[in-house]
């Protein structure tokens, strides 16, 4: 019995909690991507760096607040910075739309042109973020690091294996839940949200119905920027901030969005967790778990790791390619390929 609990503790600590947190972060990122795809009908390659931008503003603000002696007790001060970071990111993103994307939208350029434009925006953001805050790693998390530590857990339960629950993980899970609920309420129950779904479903008919396309575009960008900022900050609090990492996140995020079905918010969330759990499960060293679950004294040879952790990113791509081959519309039937 105790062995099973120990195995469970191991799994919770090294698989369940990290994958759930990572999955939430990916889900929030994928939501932003899928909204832009569904409504503006292009793949926004600048999304990862938009997350970096938003997080950067939050970090700068957090440093300023910390310097002023402001803090949130056991919660990270960065939470206070989020609203301002969101505002700044929204402003930037709307400017981009006004100066870059709108021209091509009016000209009814094909989706590929928007994609290339988003690459340009990506370069721009990349440069801006590195210029302002540098390419290195930044730490900005403060407050209590753990809700409970491994040691506390072990003392409490008497088990050999412990579980730690970090504040950043808890924050991620709670925020993601709240945001998702709010987003779905908005899309399903409000007139504006429904109009956005209508616009995504059938643009011409939506225009015929008198839905204002400019307003829909505006709200889409606002939501995407907000989601990107929050996802970025949560990820940064959890794993530290380095500009290049955010660019790399682009790919698992797209994988998540595509797995779930591009254009489907529910799909983005499911996809986020699928990608996160796959990554963690496939690169976790299962040896100790098997030690606990197997017969007494038996220990498996080697680490029992299906894939080395180096191949973490490769996992999401393999998933992506598999989905594109087997079921291109994704799990929840988004826009077809």
């Amino acid at each position: 019995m105790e062995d099973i609990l120990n195995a469970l503790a191991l799994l919770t600590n090294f698989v369940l909690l990290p994958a759930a947190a990572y999955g939430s972060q990916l889900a929030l990122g994928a939501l932003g991507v899928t909204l832009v795809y569904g409504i503006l009908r292009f793949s926004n390659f600048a999304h990862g760096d938009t997350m970096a931008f938003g997080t950067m503003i939050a970090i700068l603000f957090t440093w300023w607040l910390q310097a002023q002696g402001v803090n949130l007790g056991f919660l990270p001060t960065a939470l206070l910075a989020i609203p301002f970071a969101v505002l700044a990111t929204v402003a930037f993103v709307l400017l981009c739309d006004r100066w870059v994307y709108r021209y091509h939208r009016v000209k009814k350029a094909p989706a590929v042109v928007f994609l290339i434009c988003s690459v340009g925006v990506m370069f721009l953001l990349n440069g801006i973020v590195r210029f302002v805050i540098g390419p290195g790693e930044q730490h900005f998390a403060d407050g209590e690091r753990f809700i409970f530590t491994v040691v506390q857990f072990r003392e409490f339960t008497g088990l050999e294996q412990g579980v730690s629950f970090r504040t950043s993980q808890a924050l991620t899970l709670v925020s993601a839940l709240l945001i998702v609920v709010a987003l779905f309420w908005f899309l399903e129950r409000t007139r504006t949200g429904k109009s956005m779904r209508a616009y995504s479903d059938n643009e011409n008919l939506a225009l015929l119905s008198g839905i204002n396309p400019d307003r829909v575009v505006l709200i889409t960008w606002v939501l995407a920027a907000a989601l990107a900022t929050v996802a970025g900050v949560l990820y940064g609090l959890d794993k530290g901030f380095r500009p290049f990492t955010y660019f790399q996140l682009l790919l698992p995020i797209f994988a998540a969005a595509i797995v779930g079905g591009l254009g489907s918010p529910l799909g983005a969330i499911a996809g986020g967790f699928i990608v996160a759990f796959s990554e963690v499960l496939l690169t976790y060293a299962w040896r100790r778990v098997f030690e606990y679950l197997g017969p007494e004294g038996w220990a498996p040879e080697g680490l029992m790791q299906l894939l080395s952790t180096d191949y973490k990113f490769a996992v999401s791509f393999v998933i992506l390619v598999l989905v594109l081959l087997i079921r291109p519309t994704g799990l929840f039937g988004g826009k077809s390929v």
Partner: protein
Amino acid sequence: MSFLIAAHMTGGYGGSDILHDCTIAVEQGQIAVIVGPNGAGKSTAMKAIFGLLNLRHGQVRFNGEDIGALSPQQRVLKGMGFVPQTHNVFTSMSVEENLEMGAFIRRDDIRHSLEQVYALFPVLKEKRRQPAGQLSGGQRQQVAVGRALMTQPKLLMLDEPTAGVSPIVMDELFDRIIEVARSGIAILMVEQNARQALHIADKGYVLVQGSNRYTDSGAALLANPEVRRTFLGG
């Protein structure tokens, strides 16, 4: 002065003209039907009236007003409803949401209109929570028409509403259209099923190569031997 009068329309999609001096008029509570062979410009005429393409010549007057400069959305605000031939529902949204979207431009309480549409199309009330994409062709057409009715239009334009539906469904649909007309709404319809459409038409316009060939009441056109020979299969 007719309620809707689109006079001497000449124009096309950019290159050559499709419509040549075409005139269509509808009165309130009247059903006007546009028929003709393929490529006659029927749908083009309707789209021109709705503002989906620019006319080189001609005038469109609606309810006494010249609406030639207005965009389609603005014409919707003036009281024109338009049911496109294809892609005329939001397939991923429920029937009720489709109707809600139909009434998007209205700021008042739409429940009364919703009830009216449900009264007209009872099956929609039954399936109101189902995604419109899951409905049969005929039911979808009902959603499409209902959606357009939600704006409380004074003129309802339908582009081939019975395309691809079975004869029974077509009859039902025409029955409903008659009911709508009886409530005082002007109906303008383009139809491929000329014979059945002319049966319910107060006014019929036979277009050939973008111009008016025959214009008369529906019954008269049906009785006209020329019309019967050339378009109705004798």
